[in-house]
Structures are given as C-alpha cells and as structure tokens.
C-alpha cells in the first residue's frame, strides 16, 4: 500500500490508498449491505444501487478528498447522487467509510431515520445535496464548481446521473452551462446501465430499449470531455476518474458501462428489479452468489 497520492482530510493524512483487491472486497461488502437493507426495510430500489456500487466505492475509498470525521470540511470534494433513488447504495458506502455506524442501515426508510428513501442533506451529515426528483443534481454540482472557482478552493464536485435520468431536459441545461463556464472541476458520472424503471418495451423477454442513445456523443456535443470505463472494474474506474481530474478547460463526463442489478444473476438486466424487495430465500441466494462470485483470493471477476 502507498500513502494516498491525493489530498486527504485533516483527520486522514496518513490513510493509505486501497489496493484493487481491497476495493473489490469493499464492493462485495457494500452489495451485501444494500441487499440486506432493502430486505429489512421491505422497500427501496435495488437494481440501480447495485449498478452504481463499484463507482461509489471507488469515489469514497479511492478518489474523493474527504474527511468522515469532518463532513462539513470546506475543502472536501463534493458528491451529489443525482439518481437519488439509489440512496441505499450511497448509504452503504458512507457507512463503510465511517460516516455513521453500519447498524444504522437497519433504519433505512423507517420513520425518523436519517437514511431517507431519497437523500436528505438536512438529516444526514455527509450528504452534499438533497436529491430524488430526477434531473436536478447536475445543476447544483455546477453551482458548487462555480463556487469553488470563485472562492479559490481546490475541491472537485462529482455528480452521478442515471441514463434514464438524462432524459430530463435540465441535465442538458446544466451540461451547456458547465461547458460555457469551462468548469473543469466538475465531473458527471453516468451510470450507464441501460434500464430505466419501465422504459420503452423491446420485443421479447425482460429487456427494454436503452433510454438514451450514444450519451458520449451527446455530452461531447455539449462541450464536455468524455471518458469511457467499465463501471464494474476498479482499475478501469480509477483510470477514468484520474482522466477526469487531469483534464483542463472542460468538464468531464465518465460514461461508466454498468449492469443493473450487477452481482446477483437473477437480478441482472431485469427491469423488474428496479425497485423490488428480495424474499428471505432470494436474500440467501444473493449473499451466497456474492461470496462465490465477487470475493475470494482472485479478487472476484470485477
């Protein structure tokens, strides 16, 4: 392990950068927490959080300059989960990272919980923006990036959007504005899992037409630098995020190719698992598959 190459929060100067194998183990553990929490809550989205898990783990353990002990540290990097319905994915990773006790995940979606169905920044320290109404997260990200430039602060702002979500027109208003102001300190991460909640039907099976064609060309046309990655490969994600940080003069969009429900074969690619609660048997089966497929000496497949 090497000492983190990037800035770290005041409480974490000596935190070593995790290895790829460690990141894979963290991803597997986050997936276990997600599936258990949705099962316990009897509600919540599951397909989207599982497609976003590796990206979130990479952000919070490998990329963001943050300090879980000081969630209001002014120089922290910002993260906005614009696809707010994947909240349990973010909560699982925040808990693993030490923002709050892992046991608190049992309160997800319950009355008085800090872990709301959709992220509420007034309840949970560590959330940089409230989200849930799709298409709205990129604009505050642009505002934060503009604010960082005005303040002369070195932080970066990262916004995760879904590919169904970018059907919303406001995303493209924000995309234009970020490019117009040449904000190279904001990054959009597209969780490109190609399955919205219901979508336009495709003939046959449980697949659906992809919600948006060629997002890379669209972001490029709006003046963004575009980087592609495998959203379930930590080396690929690390390289893409590093490319975003290094790029100057334009905002960067990381197109992360993902699989909705990734890691649980009976969920993968099935739009019905957008928001569905696993039964006890399904939970057992899913946890067993994570142990078998995503962990182990070889570090799993991803």
């Amino acid at each position, binding site marked *: 392990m090497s000492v983190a190459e990037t800035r770290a929060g005041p409480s974490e100067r000596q935190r070593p950068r995790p290895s790829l194998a460690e990141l894979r183990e963290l991803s597997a553990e986050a997936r276990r927490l997600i599936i258990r929490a949705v099962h316990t809550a009897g509600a919540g989205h599951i397909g989207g959080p599982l497609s976003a898990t590796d990206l979130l783990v990479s952000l919070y353990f490998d990329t963001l300059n943050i300090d879980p002990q000081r969630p209001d540290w002014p120089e922290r990097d910002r993260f906005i989960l614009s696809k707010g319905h994947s909240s349990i994915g973010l909560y699982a990773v925040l808990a693993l990272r030490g923002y709050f006790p892992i046991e608190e995940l049992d309160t997800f979606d319950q009355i008085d919980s800090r872990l709301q169905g959709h992220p509420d920044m007034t309840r949970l320290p560590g959330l940089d*923006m409230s989200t849930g109404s799709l298409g*709205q997260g990129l*604009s*505050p990200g642009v505002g934060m990036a*503009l604010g960082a430039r005005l303040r002369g602060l070195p932080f970066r702002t990262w916004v995760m959007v879904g590919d169904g979500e970018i059907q919303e027109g*406001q995303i493209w*208003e924000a995309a234009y504005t970020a490019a*117009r102001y040449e904000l190279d300190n904001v990054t959009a991460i597209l969780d490109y899992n190609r399955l919205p909640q219901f979508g336009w039907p495709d003939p046959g099976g449980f697949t659906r037409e992809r919600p948006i064609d060629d997002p890379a060309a669209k972001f490029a046309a709006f003046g963004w630098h575009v980087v592609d990655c495998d959203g379930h490969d930590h080396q690929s994600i690390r390289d893409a995020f590093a490319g975003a940080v290094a790029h100057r003069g334009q905002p960067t969009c990381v197109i992360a190719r993902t699989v909705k429900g990734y890691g649980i074969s009976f969920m993968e690619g099935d739009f019905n698992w957008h928001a569905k609660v696993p039964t006890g048997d399904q939970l057992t089966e899913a946890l067993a598959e994570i142990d078998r497929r995503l962990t182990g000496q070889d570090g799993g497949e991803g």
Partner: protein
Amino acid sequence: MAATVTALPLAGAEHVAMREAWGQALVDLAGRYPDLLVLDGDLANSTRADIFAEAVPDRFFEMGIAEQNLLGVAAGLATVGYVPWISTFTAFLAKRALDQIRVVIAQPHLNVKLCGSYSGILTGKTGKTHQSVEDVAVFRAMPGVVTIAPADAVELRSAMAAMMETPGPIYLRLTRDPSPTIFPSDYTFRIGEGVLLRDGGDIGLVGTGTQTVRVLEAADLLAAEGIAASVLHLPTLKPLDTAALVALADRTGALVTAEDHSIIGGLGGAVAETLSEEHPTPIRRIGWRDTYGESGPNDALLEKYGLTARHVADAARDLLRTVR
C-alpha cells in the same frame, strides 16, 4: 402588532419603478455583503439586474434561458456560502422552476433569494404567459419560504436589507412599472410585521404589494363619503401578521382584502383562513377571480379585472350594507 406609519400623500407622490430600485439596491448591498451574487435568466435588461451587471460584473452570472438550471446552480452556490439573488420573471420562477425550488432550495432551506419581477397583471402588455397571479399561493404553500410583496421602492430597499440578514429562501414579489412612493424614507421593514397606514373604525381595508396604493386611494374615496377606513398593509404574506389582522378585525368588524393576485391562496385566502380560525369576520376579497389574463394597457386591465380603487371602495360599501 402592526407598526403604525403615516403614508405620504398620494397627490404629487414620486413615482419610482420597483425594478430599477431593485437593481440599484443590489449594487448597494453588494458593497456590504461580499457573498452576494446575482444569477440571471437572460432577462437582466427587463428585471434591471443589468444595473448590477454593469456595476459589479464579477459577481453577475448569466445562466441563459434555462430557469430549472438557474435555480439549481443557485442552490449549489448557496452550499458554498454565497447568497444568490435570482433575476427572472415571476411567471417562470414560480412555475417553470417550481420543482427545483422545492427540492434543492426550500426543503434543504438554502439561502437563495427568489426575486420574481413582473408579478401580477401589469407586465407591459405581455399578457397571459408573463402575468403571474398564482405565485403567492404557490410559495405560501411551500414550507419554509418567506413571502414578501413590498408596496414601493422605499419598502423594497428596506426589505432587501432584511432579506440579506435572514438566512433561508425568501420570495420577493416585484412589479414592473413606476408606482407612487407611499413610505417615508426612514421607514424600516420587518419580516412578518404589518403596517397600519391609516386608522378608521368603520371598516378595515387590507392590501399587499403595490395594490396597497390603490387601497389607500379607496380609503380616500370612502372618506369623502364619511366612511372611516383603516388601511393595513401586509408586505409579508408568510409569515402573516396574525395579531395585526385580529386587532383590525376586532376594531372594525368587517374587512376588504385587495391584491394583484388570485383571491385563491393569495392575501384574500390567507386572511380568510387566518381570521376564520382566530376571529371570524365578514370579508370581501378583491383580486383575480379564477381566470387568466390578457395583454393590454394597465388602466384597462385594472378596470376589466376589477382591481381599481373604485372596485375596492365598492366592495367596502357593499360589505357595510350587509353587516350593518
């Protein structure tokens, strides 16, 4: 309890365009508050944010014709400690960007100043799309949003100073055209405080925004007939000055409300809701009666849609016949 202020005489009053006073006041505030920014939705030369853009160019940000993004960017800037003031028309602020205000500004209680220019029906012959008669109802119903409608440029300037000292989302309802100055220059606006502009025991007239000027004219019309009317100006529609309303209802026993806004959910709605619980009182409401507008000269619009001083006075007389 309401403040008591003697209104300046309407005859010979100075006429000032609120939008120009707004643009200049932003420049003045910028000198005292380094975190004040102005974000414009490509309407600065109408809202008169161009006065600010000219004077403080490095703190003016053009966001183009994209109101949803405009409000979202403001929310992001507010999280970094800036105080963004929004420059657009009320029609677009309160409706086009409504969900953005709800999700990323009002619910997280971020410090964004929501300025809606061209409110009501007097919008320079632009007609139905640009008039706004539902905005007060919208923002009153939104938890945590203070709603202010000043009567003139003096009150506007004082209200803007109060807004800078009050963290959180505040909606400021502005009108387009020059209107008479009724407040003396030493007047101080306070959020949530009504202002008793005239005291009379026969009937209470309640106004808000620039419609209060026409309410004062109505009080003059009634005085000429021997009817002594109180005039209560409510520049803050939320939180409402309940104590001032109850005191007025108790003193006069009958109220007329008047606003350049729908009577549904606006001042009339707010007063009726409040007094029916706190001090049931006969009320007549002057304002938009569940209809859309049209383009036309100001006088013609006020006449056709029933907002003139004569309409207020007629309602007062009618109400007095009913209750006496």
